[in-house]
C-alpha cells in the first residue's frame, strides 16, 4: 500500500468523511461503486414484484399505500444512482449492466410473488431485513451515500407499519387469509435467511476496512431474528426451520442457509430473474425515444 493509501485508510478508520471531490484510492472508489450500484439495482428490481399487486390491491387504502411504497423505492433508486453517477458511472451505464446481467441485485427480488400474502410478508419481513442493513449504512465513510441513507431510512419507516397492518388484517381475518400468510412465510423464509449474506469475518472484508459497511452479515441476521421471530410466533405462525431457537446467551441458532442457492440466484439464475430483466429491457426500449427527446444525454 502506498503512503497516500495508508493515510486515507487511517483517515476513514478514524471516522473521517469522504466527499465526492476528495482524492480517494481507485480501489475504494471501485468498491464503493460496486456496492452502491448493487443497492440501486435492488431498489429498482424490487419494484417489479410489488407493482403487479398495486393493480390488484383489494381496498382503496391498500392501493394508495402500496403505490406510495413502490414510489418510495423508485425514489430511492434515483437517489442511489445519482450517488453512483457522481462517483463516475452514469445512470444509463448502470441500467445497461443491470439489464445485461453484468451487475447484481439482492436475492429476494429474484423470486415470484404469488398472492396477497406475499405482498404483506414482503412489506413486513423483507423490508425489515433490508432496513437493518440500511441503518448500518448511515455510518458509511462516503458522506454523500450516508446522507441519502438518512432520507431512505426515514421514508422506510411507514413501509414497516404498512406491512404489519396488512399482516394483522389477514391474521384477524378468515382461515383462508391466515393461510395466505403462513404459506408466504414458508416460501420466503429461505431467501430471508440468505439475505444478509454468508458470515464473513470483518477483518477479511475490505468493505469494513474502508468503513463502507459497518455491520457484519451475521450481526445483521441476528438482529433480524431477534426482532422478528417473536413477532412471527406471537401471531401463531410457524417458521419452516425446526432448528430455529434462541439460546440462553441470546444468540439465535438456525439451520444453515443454502449458500449455494444464494450464489446461484444472485448470479442471475433465480426463478424470475430472466423475466424481470426482460421486462426492464422491454420498458426501457419502449421509452428510449422519450429520453432522447427530453433529456440532455440520449439513452
Amino acid at each position, binding site marked *: 500500500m502506498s503512503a497516500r493509501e495508508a493515510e486515507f485508510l487511517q483517515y476513514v478508520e478514524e471516522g473521517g468523511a469522504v466527499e465526492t471531490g476528495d482524492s480517494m484510492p481507485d480501489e475504494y472508489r471501485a468498491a464503493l461503486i460496486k456496492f452502491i450500484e448493487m443497492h440501486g439495482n435492488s431498489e*429498482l428490481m424490487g*419494484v*417489479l414484484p410489488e*407493482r403487479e*399487486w*398495486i*393493480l*390488484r*390491491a*383489494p*381496498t*382503496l387504502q*391498500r*392501493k*394508495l399505500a402500496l*403505490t*406510495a411504497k*413502490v*414510489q418510495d423505492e*423508485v*425514489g430511492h*433508486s*434515483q437517489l442511489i*444512482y445519482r450517488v453512483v453517477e457522481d462517483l463516475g458511472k452514469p*445512470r444509463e451505464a448502470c441500467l445497461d449492466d443491470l439489464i445485461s446481467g453484468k451487475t447484481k441485485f439482492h436475492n429476494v427480488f429474484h423470486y415470484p410473488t404469488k398472492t*396477497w400474502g406475499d405482498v404483506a410478508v414482503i412489506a413486513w419481513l423483507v423490508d425489515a431485513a433490508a432496513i437493518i442493513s440500511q441503518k448500518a449504512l448511515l455510518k458509511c465513510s462516503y458522506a454523500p451515500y450516508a446522507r441519502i441513507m438518512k432520507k431512505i431510512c426515514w421514508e422506510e419507516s411507514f413501509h414497516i407499519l404498512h406491512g404489519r397492518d*396488512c399482516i394483522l*388484517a*389477514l391474521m*384477524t*381475518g*378468515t382461515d*383462508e*387469509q391466515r393461510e395466505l400468510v403462513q404459506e408466504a412465510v414458508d416460501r420466503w423464509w429461505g431467501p430471508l435467511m440468505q439475505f444478509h449474506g454468508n458470515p464473513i469475518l470483518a477483518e477479511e472484508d475490505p468493505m469494513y476496512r474502508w468503513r463502507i459497511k459497518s455491520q457484519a452479515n451475521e450481526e445483521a441476521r441476528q438482529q433480524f431474528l431477534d426482532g422478528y421471530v417473536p413477532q412471527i410466533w406471537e401471531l401463531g405462525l410457524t417458521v419452516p426451520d425446526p432448528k430455529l431457537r434462541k439460546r440462553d446467551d441470546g444468540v439465535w441458532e438456525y439451520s444453515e442457509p443454502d449458500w449455494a442457492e444464494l450464489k446461484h440466484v444472485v448470479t442471475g439464475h433465480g426463478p424470475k430473474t430472466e423475466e424481470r430483466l426482460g*421486462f*426492464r429491457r*422491454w*420498458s426501457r426500449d*419502449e*421509452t428510449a*425515444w*422519450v*429520453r432522447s*427527446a*427530453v*433529456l440532455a444525454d440520449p439513452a
Partner: protein
Amino acid sequence: MQVADTVHLPRGKAFVNPDVDLFLQLADDELMLGWRNSEWTGIAPFLEEDVAFSSIAQTEIGHARAWYELAAEELGTDADALAFDREPDEYRCSPFVELRLVPDWARTIARHWLYETADAIRIADLKASDDPSVAGLAEKIDREETYHRMHADMWAERLRDEPRFLAAVDDLWPYSLGMLRDSQREQLCERVGRDPVDAIERGEHTEDLRPLWEDMTMVRRSVPGATW
C-alpha cells in the same frame, strides 16, 4: 358492453338517482385513470418522472375515493364496495379512461393533457353546485389538480413538436370530448384549439375494461366480504 341502467350493490339494492350517477361517473373516471396511470409505476421513461407520475396516480385514486364516499352516503354502503364490488357493465366511466396505453408514453401524456384540460372544465362547474358537499369537494380537488395541470402542460409543451404526441392527441381527441357533457364541449375545443368531432360517448365500454376489472378485483373476489 353497455353501461347498465341500474347498479346492484352487495345488499341487492338497485337505484336510479341522477346525483349518485354523477358521483359514480366522476369516481369511476378517476379510479380507472388512476389505475391506468399507476401501471407506469416502476417503468416510466426516467426515474424522476416515475416518482412524479406515481403521485398523480395516487391523487386520482384519492379523488375517486372522495366521490365514492359521497355516493356511498346516499346508498348506505362504503367506498370500497362501490369501487370493487360491481360488475364491469355497472361502471360509469368514460371509455377514455379505460384504454390501455402502456408502454406508449406519447399516448399516455396525450390522455393526461386532454383529461386534465377537460376535468378542469368539469370541476369549475361542480364548484358552482348548489349542493355544498359537492361544491366543497370540487374546491378541494381543484387545489390538488393545479399540480396535475402544471405537469400535463409542461409535458405537452415539451412534446408539442413530437409527431408521436400529435398523432396521439388526434387519436384521443374524440374520447376526451365524450368525457364531458354536451354543454361543456365547446370550452374544451377552445382550450385545446381543435374543432369538434364525433365524440366517443359514455354508455358503452371498451374491450380493455373487462381484463382491467378482472385484475383489479381478483384479490377482493378471492375471499368475498373479507377485511384486508
